[in-house]
């Protein structure tokens, strides 16, 4: 994933992924790598070809919700309308990039408003977005945020409630192992609740609050991979290396990460 390459160009990111041995990536659609706004987005075919030329497939996308003014629980008509266009464009871009999955989160409200208002905004917004996704053949993977990031969906209970209330065939669930750890939960807890509806993951080494590369946190990697295998998980293990300390030299972070992960990879 290219989120920690934000101080470098997209070309540099792709070169590094090729050199280090990543064959599939999740595209973080943030600047300076990818332009997307409520009106449009970059030429996806050019980006797909650029990646393919280095033997890399773009398999999923994340449209940033912290980087810009747009989020899924936006407080008013104008903000919600602009946010909806923005995330809808993310779905169109995902489709053009030939990705099956786009990650989403619930957005967030503020502490000086009733919680149910922010909840309702997020639910209605995501339900509308699911219709767009269905039309494009894209699955939205709902991610819980940490409770310091969102007061709406931030643990298994709230994820399950949102997932059930929306109840849309284009909505699945993903586990972010950092939000999971911050909420005091385990992978088994997530599989117990969601089973086959757990379709995607951001799979990082937590301590538990920071998005570390493997080896920099405290998680039991072997046990967690065993859980993924035991539960029949067939989705991706996306390396969403998001901590700022990796931004200066993201390639080194990816090399170290791969050095740990490749011990567990079988061709």
């Amino acid at each position, binding site marked *: 994933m290219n989120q920690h390459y934000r*101080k470098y160009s997209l070309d540099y990111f792709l070169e590094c992924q090729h050199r280090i041995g990543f064959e599939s990536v999740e595209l973080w659609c943030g*600047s300076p790598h990818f332009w997307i706004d409520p009106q449009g987005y970059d030429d996806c075919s050019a980006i797909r070809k650029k990646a393919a030329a280095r033997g890399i497939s773009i398999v999923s996308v994340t449209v940033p919700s912290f980087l810009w003014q747009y*989020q899924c629980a936006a407080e008013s008509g104008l903000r919600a309308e602009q946010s909806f266009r923005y995330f809808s464009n993310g779905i169109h871009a995902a489709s053009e990039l030939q990705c099956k999955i786009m990650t989403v989160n619930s957005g967030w409200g503020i502490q000086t408003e009733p919680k149910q208002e922010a909840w309702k905004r997020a639910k209605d917004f995501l339900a509308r977005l699911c219709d767009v996704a269905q039309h494009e053949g894209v699955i939205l993977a709902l991610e819980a945020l940490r409770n310091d990031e969102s007061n709406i969906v931030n643990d298994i209970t709230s994820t399950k409630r949102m997932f059930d209330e929306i109840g849309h065939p284009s909505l699945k669930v993903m586990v972010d192992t950092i939000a999971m750890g911050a909420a005091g939960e385990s992978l088994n807890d997530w599989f117990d609740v969601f089973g086959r509806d757990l379709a995607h993951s951001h799979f990082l080494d937590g301590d538990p609050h920071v998005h570390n590369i493997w080896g920099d946190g405290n998680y039991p990697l072997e046990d967690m991979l065993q859980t993924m295998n035991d539960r029949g998980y067939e989705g991706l293990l996306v390396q969403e290396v998001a901590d700022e300390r990796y931004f200066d030299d993201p390639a080194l972070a990816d090399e170290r990460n791969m050095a740990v992960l490749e011990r567990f990879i079988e061709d």
Partner: protein
Amino acid sequence: MQQAPSTMIAGSNVHYGRYSFRYFVETQAELGLTQIELWGSTPHLWCNHLGREEGIDEISRLLYGSRLAVSAFAPRPYGYSLFSEPGSALREATLSYYRKCIEIASRLQSRYLCLVPIGDCADTREDALWARCSNALHELCKTAKSHGVAIVIGEASPQESRLFSRFEALTRLRRGLSTSGLKFFLDTSRLGTHRENIAQWFEKLGEDIAFVRFVDSRWAGPRVWGEGCLPAKRLWLQLSQAGYTGPLVMHLSGDRYQDDPAAADRRNVQFLKGLIGEGK
């Protein structure tokens, strides 16, 4: 030491992101403040590069009701970048966004639009980055001037920018844009990380220093006074000796004070009133 009025103390809504703007304004009024640096960001103030905006009239009304003036408008940079490539969608969006922000600054009767150049790509040549940023600022300064607003530039942290985390970059920019009306702000949390001093700032940038973000700090970022590692008395003495009488902005960016920003402001104001001679 020179006595200064507590009206120099200016609040900021940068750490009130989990609360309404009304809550922020009520807190500032309770603390007896008369001016703020307005952090232009969701959930308080919403605008984008497509000319859309929301919340400005409500903000004006609340500020007016509490007799709070906007000493500077600091729009959140989001993903926009002054270093973006000419002709790119990001470049057009960046210039459109900041032009919109200039217009908002003017409507809020703020003399200053505050920018920190961040987001320079590490694999792009420095001279190209410099030219892009400098040209963008030149354009924005012209627009700002026509609205009666001045662009004010501050130092970035090393994590935010390779080019603009050095004092020399600001003095070079001043030489290059000498007739543009460009101004600068001094941030004491950056002084701490860059091993600079106030005398150096006033010697090199003097009357072009528009205001000061006056906060304590540690390596991880700004702190309420007394919670960081900066010598408050010494810094205040140096500002006084330099003849500075402008705003002292309590700009507490980062996550640390988001849970209870009002408590952080109360501690900070109490400390500052004591420091500048009105707290006894």
